[in-house]
């Protein structure tokens, strides 16, 4: 009976949750019945990570309307802070609780970075903002690469030079070893944890969008002057969206760090390439369309792995497929053609018609 009262957005959100749930159940069935290849099994956690990244970036790009190219930087911050905590606390507390706290720490640290970076960055607009976020993302990556942190009986030691200048005692252990990063992070990430985190991120983002704050954020996107003149605190709402987006990316980073036993800040995984990759997920899925982000993140992560059969040509084919998909999804002519097609075949279906009346 509650269903009857559901608004259109609520229904729409419900479909999004439902897709994730169905995918989860489907995967669980396949896993339990042993029909999952090792490759797919290994890809499950990365899929969750990329879905969360795409969804969180969509908050900045789609809802706040600012182009951010530094999203991998927040992921990096979250990954390193979470892994650092887990490495320090390894064995000191139960695995589940440690992982949970690591996730919270990753979210908090990335969120704080979001605010710190957001304050100067969000004064800019459009292309300028994109370039500055790109620079911040690179700064984060490079800082992590020269950071040395060790632990011994006297507490923590920090250095920006090399691990020798930490002057660790006998029992000392280097935790963050500059470019070598953090090795030996416990393997806590699981598909179930990943899906739970996706649900939580979706819950946060979808509810934010449909709240008073969310409408304020979207009004800034649509017309900044009008929003300001109705008394909306632009800085506050911009920072809110930006830091929530960063925090979720941080959580994705923690998941990433706990999935692999080695964590290094390479251009490949935390550089601007990754930021652009996440942006591609968002753009392909539709800017502002959360469900689209989920689906495109899944497809674009799976695609290079499913193309492995083509060996060295696969990155080329991947690029071509990406171009084709972009054209098919978003070129005006293709949209027109698809609309026509829909007219022809789907106009007779009753529930579609009902909508048309609206």
């Amino acid at each position, binding site marked *: 009976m509650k269903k009857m009262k559901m608004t259109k957005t609520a229904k729409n959100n419900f479909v999004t949750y439902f897709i994730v749930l169905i995918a989860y159940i489907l995967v669980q069935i396949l896993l339990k019945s042993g029909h999952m290849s090792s490759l797919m099994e*290994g890809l499950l956690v990365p899929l969750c990570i990329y879905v969360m990244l795409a969804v969180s970036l969509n908050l900045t790009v789609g809802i706040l309307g600012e182009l951010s190219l530094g999203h991998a930087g927040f992921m990096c911050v979250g990954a390193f802070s979470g892994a650092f905590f887990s490495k320090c606390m390894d064995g000191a507390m139960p695995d589940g609780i440690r992982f949970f706290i690591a996730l919270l720490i990753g979210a908090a640290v990335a969120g704080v970075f979001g605010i710190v970076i957001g304050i100067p960055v969000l004064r800019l607009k459009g292309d300028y903002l994109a370039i500055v976020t790109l620079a911040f993302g690179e700064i984060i990556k490079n800082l992590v690469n020269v950071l040395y942190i060790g632990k011994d009986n006297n507490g923590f030691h920090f250095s920006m030079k090399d691990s020798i200048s930490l002057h660790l005692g006998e029992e000392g252990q280097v935790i963050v070893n500059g470019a070598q990063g953090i090795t030996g992070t416990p393997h806590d990430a699981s598909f179930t944890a990943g899906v739970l985190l996706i649900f939580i991120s979706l819950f946060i983002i979808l509810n934010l969008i449909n709240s008073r704050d969310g409408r304020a954020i979207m009004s800034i996107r649509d017309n900044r002057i009008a929003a300001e003149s109705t008394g909306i605190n632009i800085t506050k709402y911009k920072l809110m969206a930006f830091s929530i987006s960063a925090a979720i990316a941080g959580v994705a980073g923690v998941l990433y760090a706990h999935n692999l036993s080695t964590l290094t800040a390479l251009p490949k995984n935390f550089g601007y390439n990754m930021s652009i990759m996440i942006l591609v997920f968002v753009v392909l899925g539709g800017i502002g369309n959360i469900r*689209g982000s989920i689906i495109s993140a899944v497809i674009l992560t799976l695609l290079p792995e499913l193309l492995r059969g083509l060996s*060295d040509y696969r990155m080329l084919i991947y690029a071509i497929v990406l171009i084709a998909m972009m054209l098919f999804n978003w070129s005006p002519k293709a949209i027109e053609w698809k609309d026509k097609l829909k007219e022809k075949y789907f106009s007779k279906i009753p529930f579609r018609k009902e909508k*048309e009346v609206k």
Partner: protein
Amino acid sequence: MKRFDKIMSLVMASAMAASLFVGCGNADTGAQADNAASEANDTATDEAAESDAGTAAADDSAAADTAASGAFKIGGIGPTTGSAAVYGVAVQNAAQLAVDEINAAGGINGVSIEFKFEDDECDAEKSVNAYNTLKDWGMQMLMGTVTSGCSVAVAEKTADDNMFQLTPSGSSVDCVKYDNAFRVCFSDPNQGAASAQYIGENSVASSVAVIYDSSDIYSSGIYEKFVSEAANQPFEIVSAEAFTADNKTDFSVQLQKAKDAGAELVFLPIYYTEASLILSQASTMGYEPIFFGCDGLDGILNVENFDTSLAEGVMLLTPFAADAEDELTKKFVTAYKEKFGDTPNQFAADAYDAIYAIKAAGEKAGITPDMDMSAMCEAMKGAMTEITLDGLTGVGMTWDASGEPNKAPKAVKITDGVYTAM
């Protein structure tokens, strides 16, 4: 638009589901093939048990019965695309060369080898994906991965699965943390210590400068050990300057500092591309110290547009030199050049040795293709510590249970454009 979105999302969702099924479809066929394989092998071994024809004959018949199933499946992982592709490709080629040679000579215990190499783009995450792909293919032993970071990530997985792993060139300490993993190359600390000892014991210089790549695991690993070992040696480190992957074209600052500090020797624990730039920039500024490097410097004589006379007098510790005069190296270099049109580097030599080490250990352990992964690993683990291999990267190489190879580093000096032993 809303309606369209719905349809599109339906299509996308079904595509997603379909791709999942594609994945498991492959797995199914893979599993079936494996079943068939083990059945075939079971019958083959039964026959062998019944007839006292000897194992060789049985293996032959097994190989003849099912060409695909009666073979050892060895997988390899490394970057064949991206910035580190040169190492991955070298390993892939050399390993394939070794596999072809072994197969032509009758294989391991008379059973041929199937070799498959997967790309990891030098990314730990992709490397794990590549490992899983190879596992779906039916890999029984892993020869990889090429780079250290990936190797650490994959070692975690092989340890979980108890799969035998031999990395040709993963040099960081954690690569062989677990007892199922071995390596062919020297570890980073090993090279750093060996370099410091060499410089100290032979009194090559009394003041040393270091230029290293702080963003590279290989380079910073050697550097750190070098510095700590230098404390026990009769020379002094007067300057230590780092560069990173983002600014590796101009080294005048680092060189100037080394010069001002009066360093007689500059230690370069880096790869040859940057080293060639350092050499030419040092020559431009009229600074002529002794340059000393590790195995990463191997290949410097083949850098395009590099005046090799600048490399005159450079000393390096390397396990392999492509123009060495021994029989094995000559044969390998000729075959490699013929097949791939390129001079093999040290990575290629490591991979070649890795495949032969697997062969030697496999023969020692008496493994058969129908053994399961874990049993094979247990057998190989024991056998690896018992073999002695005369390979390209060392004569009389042995391994201990820690996974580290025991071989002597060769110090060479470049004179008249060729390596000469010191």
